[in-house]
């Protein structure tokens, strides 16, 4: 496995409220996550750090994540705990009211691959040289499309395109979407909406396909391209490539 992760504030924002991580435990299991914080007075940074730090520590505290059922429970219980922590924090520091964060995670083991998602950060996989988006964004527009109120075309022009319906710190109780992903995928990419708002899926796929580039260079190129297209938001990427034979 080769992994690389990077976050960039972009060209407009002063702060980077994204947090990103990839960790591996002794059992060769990987945990990847991207959180995109929101809220003023640096509260967004606090929410996303709280989330990523908690998950990292909880994941590394276990020798192994266990079987698929254990991993699903781990994700569900973790987001409930994190959500409580964020609410407790905003109770105590009213100036951080409204703080919250999105979260997209992947758990990669020898036996299964799970994705988890809350909000509008994205989880992609590459299979047979094609990019697939696994997660479904929890945006108002997406929900309207799924209920048939809006067509996909109308959704693209909707004025509230990026309004979130679900985020850690915003909903109580919180529910995480979990996806059981095909084991035949060759690459995993998690990112914040700073990437997906700037680059289309085709453009992302094109960079990932460039075999001359190392894993690290592909991530850097994606971030550069997003910044060239405006870079209006923080951009974070966690990227994992399975070596053939693994």
């Amino acid at each position, binding site marked *: 496995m080769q992994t690389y992760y990077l976050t960039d504030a972009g060209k*407009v924002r002063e702060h980077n409220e994204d947090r990103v991580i990839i960790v591996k435990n002794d059992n060769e299991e990987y945990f990847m996550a991207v959180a995109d914080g929101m809220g003023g007075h640096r509260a967004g940074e*606090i929410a996303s750090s709280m989330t990523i730090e908690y998950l990292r520590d909880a994941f590394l505290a276990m020798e192994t994540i266990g079987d698929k059922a254990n991993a699903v429970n781990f994700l569900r219980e973790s987001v409930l705990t994190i959500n409580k922590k964020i609410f407790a924090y905003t109770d105590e520091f009213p100036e951080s009211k409204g703080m919250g964060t999105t979260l997209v995670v992947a758990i990669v083991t020898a036996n299964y691959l799970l*994705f988890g998602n809350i909000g509008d950060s994205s989880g992609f996989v590459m299979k047979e040289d094609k990019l697939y988006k696994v997660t479904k964004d929890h945006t108002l527009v997406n929900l309207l499309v799924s*209920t048939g109120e809006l067509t*996909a075309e*109308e959704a693209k022009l909707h004025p509230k395109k990026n309004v979130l319906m679900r985020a850690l710190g915003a*909903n109580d109780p919180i529910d995480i979407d979990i*996806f059981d*992903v095909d084991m035949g995928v060759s690459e995993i990419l998690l990112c914040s909406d700073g990437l997906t708002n700037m680059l289309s899926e085709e453009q992302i796929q094109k960079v990932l396909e460039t075999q001359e580039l190392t894993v690290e260079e592909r991530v850097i190129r994606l971030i550069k391209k997003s910044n060239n297209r405006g870079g209006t938001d923080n951009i974070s990427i966690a990227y994992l490539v399975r070596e053939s034979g693994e």
Partner: protein
Amino acid sequence: MVVKGQKINERYEILKIIGEGGMANVYLAEDTILGRKVAVKVLRGDLANDEKFVRRFQREALAASSLNHPNIVEMYDVGEDDGDFYIVMEYIEGRNLKQLIKRRGALTIPEVIDIMLQLTDGLAHAHDAYIIHRDIKPQNILILDNGLVKITDFGIAMALNNSQLTQTNSVMGSVHYLPPEQASGKGSTIKSDLYSLGILMYELLTGKLPFRGESAVEIALKHMKDPLPSLSRELDNVPQSIENIIIRATAKNPKNRYNNAREMYEDVKTALDDERIHEPRYIYKYLEHDLDDTKILPVIKDDKGDGLIAKPITDDDFKPNKKIFIILGSILASLILLLFLIFIIIPAVTEVPDVRIPDVSNMTVEDAESKLKEAGFEVAIELKEISSDKIEEGNIVKTSPASGRMIKKGTTVTLYQSTGENLIEIENYIGKDYIEVKSALTLKGIKVIQEKKDVDDISLYRDKENIIIAQNIDSGSKLKDGDEIILYTPNIYEVYPDMVGEKWTVADAQVFADEYGFNLDVTYKETDAVSPGIIIYQSRPANSKIVTGFTLKIDVSKAKPVQEEPIEEEPINGTE
């Protein structure tokens, strides 16, 4: 951040905070020029980076400031001070309608009529000026003790909703008053305000919201699809004329609504007339779901493209119980595939009965082990350690899976042994950034209090107001969850130096003024008391606080021409 005592644009002195919100805070302030109390709404600082937002905000707010009506909160001024965008408004000592509903519940019909007349009157005035409110809700309507009602935040709601920043970084706010056309992204007209007003009238009469739901989208969908619940079911003896107002205002199809606020005003005004009380129920003239708007009903999204790659895990996947067998019995053969997957995920274990994990907290390891084994569980050989301020060191804090859960017999349970209180070692934070340290400590459960401390030499701390200069607990000490620490940051304020006493030159003063962002107004005065070029008067005394943008008047000595010429000329004059 705006603080008490701060003077915005040299004019509005902040007295106290009176309201907090996600996008803006509202302060009570004193307009020092006109000597009156005003409300100042200061928008969140980071909005200033969004150019599109700033333009829109200024345009909308300026347009709204032209409104002048007793039922609209007057907007006095819009501006920017040091990156903070603010709006100065009439200060209203009263509560908002939401607070009133919360306290009183439903209002009486005459009260509601009175409020609605004022609101429709105010809206009619704004609509005449082509200004749509777009966010009519009880939180935006203030009511004075004498019953006068005032609408606030005209135009601002729209600016906020369209900012790039709020779009990417906000969770949708209240949708309880959201007109269907707005929910489906078609934009607002003056009739959108009438819809929200109709929902508000329903709420005032019943004390309840007509559309409720667990999520914003559920509510938004109800606005689009569900008929409004009947008012007469909530309220006994309500005249049909009153219910008709709500029926008309809240029509899904804007064509079925009142044409304008004035029409609604007239209808409200005559609603209680004798001949109207028993009028028939209002019937819409047009179809509620407009045919002009036909859209091809989207085919239910085929997820198979993704399905090959990933499959959502539902709640049932990992709760193997009798539910599955019920589903099995009732579901068609096409779903066998799904079941196949479920059986792969939870192989074989389905046969074993579920048992509740007993609570073993605060037990010794031996007791806990025997209790769990008794219940039919395996106990992991390796103990995990965890800190706890409640459970004595060495005893069990919790298990994983947690006690109370129904788990297959024979599952291995991991015990967590207490390592005693979770003590956090305090480091030396001096010189570090207050916000970072506060976040780190807060996450560990420590309460952080910030106090300002005077420093001897303010110049050393310029731009370092968030640097910690002292702490009340020494590094190396240990604190536990819930303990407090005070971190001191420098009390920074800039003062004018004693330019006269210290014999500053104009050049010195100019350098200083540039650095602190104030202007100099220099007057040269002839004097021989001091050498030329020295400041002999400053309009603000030494040690008074520097206000950025202020103009400091200074007088500077000017000597030479005055000294030399008269002395030479006098004897010449004398000889003539």
